[in-house]
């Protein structure tokens, strides 16, 4: 993109204001959505969201303009984004419910980003992300309960355990493909669930209770967070923790996407045979995708276990894996922003539509089918890779 010198300054100012407007507008929308109590307001906000999406699709120039502004002012966009994330809990009128929803949404965003490496980048179906999530949660909880390991040590340890399981799961993937591979991952997920449900040391169907809250510099995560005299509910601790994890995951995803690894995954997605002929070690990259997925899922699982303080096998069923898959598909495969929006939308929607709370699983199924039929590429479709400038 070439911007002439005369248009330079005014162009930069417009870009800055476009970025600021988009980010602050989105944050304001999210706040209203979280605090909305009446289901009619929720439906109205959703309608607004849909209209904006359709509008963007109808007016590609506007979309391109916003995108251009973000890439021109990427540093400003990042800083403003971080500031909004840091300030957000102060705008929620101390609603613990809104914070809770945000934490869960952020953990699911991490899981969806993790799955995106496989499903989005390399087109490997994996129905076992929920199992990796569970393995991370159980590993850290067992460490904390049996050996008094602190959260900060349990976090990497659980990620390592989940990664090892991810590797084990990845090994059969060297041999199988497509539907057969899908069955292997489903089988792995069900096996993990049944073992958690039946083994002695995992507490069986009752799960594990009394996982202690983490501490940092003497501050317990179970107590309210006080910043500059403002007191935030104790959930805010975990909000910042999970936000940090989302940040790391985004960085991780971006770096991998732009590296040779991301390119190799995309090559596998396009045509495995052609990729092999180009000298890409397909086996290695497939196993790598499983390992990366499990690694991030292990982190998310640990934070979940310490946040809720209680885990049971029912938190990590096949349905959880399908939910994560839905987030990736509905949001947009291989599109980081899309995946995060998908995760937020699908975590909050069933919660906010209390009127249908009984029907939330049904709602999930219908949403997936509708998305696959109407917009198979997701809310934010995958972008073409740009090379050079």
């Amino acid at each position, binding site marked *: 993109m070439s911007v002439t010198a005369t248009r330079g300054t005014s162009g930069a100012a417009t870009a800055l204001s476009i970025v600021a407007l988009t980010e602050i507008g989105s944050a304001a929308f999210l706040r209203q959505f979280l605090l909305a109590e009446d289901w009619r307001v929720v439906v109205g906000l959703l309608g607004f969201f849909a209209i904006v999406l359709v509008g963007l699709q109808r007016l590609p120039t506007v979309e391109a303009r916003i995108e251009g502004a973000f890439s021109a002012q990427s540093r400003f966009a990042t800083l403003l984004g971080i500031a909004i994330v840091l300030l957000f809990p102060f705008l929620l009128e101390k609603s613990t419910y809104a914070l809770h929803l945000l934490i869960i949404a952020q953990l699911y965003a991490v899981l969806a980003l993790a799955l995106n490496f496989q499903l989005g980048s390399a087109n490997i179906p994996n129905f076992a992300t929920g199992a990796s999530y569970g393995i991370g949660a159980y590993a850290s909880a067992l460490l904390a309960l049996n050996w008094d390991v602190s959260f900060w040590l349990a976090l990497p340890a659980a990620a390592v355990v989940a990664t090892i399981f991810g590797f084990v799961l990845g090994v059969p993937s060297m041999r199988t493909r497509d539907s*057969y591979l899908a069955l292997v991952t489903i089988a792995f997920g069900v096996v993990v669930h*049944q073992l958690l449900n039946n083994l002695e040391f995992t507490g069986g169907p009752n799960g594990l209770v009394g996982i202690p809250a983490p501490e940092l510099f003497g501050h317990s995560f179970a107590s309210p967070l006080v910043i500059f005299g403002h007191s935030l509910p104790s959930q805010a601790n975990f909000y910042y923790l999970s936000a940090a994890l989302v940040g790391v995951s985004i960085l991780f995803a971006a770096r991998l996407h732009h590296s040779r690894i991301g390119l190799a995954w995309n090559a596998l997605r396009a045509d495995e045979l052609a990729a092999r002929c180009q000298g890409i070690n397909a086996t290695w990259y497939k196993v790598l995708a499983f390992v990366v997925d499990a690694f991030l899922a292990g982190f998310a699982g640990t934070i979940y276990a310490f946040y809720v303080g209680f885990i049971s096998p029912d938190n990590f069923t096949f349905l959880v894996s*399908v939910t994560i898959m839905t987030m990736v598909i509905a949001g947009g495969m291989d599109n980081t922003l899309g995946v995060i929006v998908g995760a937020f939308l699908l975590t909050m929607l069933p919660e906010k539509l209390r009127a249908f709370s009984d029907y939330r699983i049904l709602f999930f199924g219908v949403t997936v089918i509708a998305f*696959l039929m109407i917009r*198979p590429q997701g809310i934010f479709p995958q972008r073409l890779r740009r090379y050079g400038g």
Partner: protein
Amino acid sequence: MTEQLVQQLLNWITLGSIYALVAVGFSLLFGVLNIIHFSHGDVSLLAPFLALAAVQTVSASVGGSPAVVAIVLSVLLAVIVTGLLGVVLYYLVIKRFQNAPAMMALVATVALGIVLRELIRHLYPQGSNPHAVPRLVPGSIEVLGVTIPAFNLVAILVSVLSVGLLFYMLERTRLGLHIKAVSQDRDAARLISISPARIFQITFFIASAIGAIGGLFFAGYAGIVRFDFSVDVGLIGFSAAVVGGLGSMPGAIIGSLLIAGLDTLVQATVPNGASYRLVFVFLLVICVLVFRPAGLLGRTIVEKV
């Protein structure tokens, strides 16, 4: 001792033939449409609910237990309605994913299964609770000092008959020839004036109806049915089809017998085995797929460069 052995063998064959009824549907649909119909297990398990509802309606109007004829008619009705429902689902959902990437179809049908399960839960009276299923065939026969429940014999007989009929239909009739033609090359089949759309319809009807018979026997064997039983039925049926090699009918039967054998063995020998059965079944599936990635009788895909 021998009595126990015979009993277990009987259980094995019964379970194997029930699984085969579901597995054959997976394989048939994959062979003809090249689609994994993951909600096949859920479709199959609609049949016992339909049959129960029909029987209850009859007994409510009669004011006592309905006659045998009424029960048989209800069961037949359930099988036919389930078959037709399969066709409806094909038109509503699955048709749109026929030319989509395989993974899209897989995820869509997983979601479709969830929808069906939840619909039973919400629409069927007391849908979340387990419903008792009377044994369709009471009584037992004594052979060489071993009592054999008539239900098991009927289950085996009906399975062998249905699968046999399917084989006969595929191998010996004009319709079977048409189905094979469409499965091999849709466009070529259209050129000789076979309508692939009609064949897909018929295939869906046959697969769903045979699955419905399997679902009925499964519910009868367990004596109970619940909205989420279809997860087990679907996963085991799909596993059996995959272990045997998707698209291969004899493979589906061999896979079913293998899995049923392991299932019975685990339940008979491992303490508390019933709650671990899926673990063993899936370890078998993974092992088979690691050594034979296309299943036991599956066609190995050879790619030439």
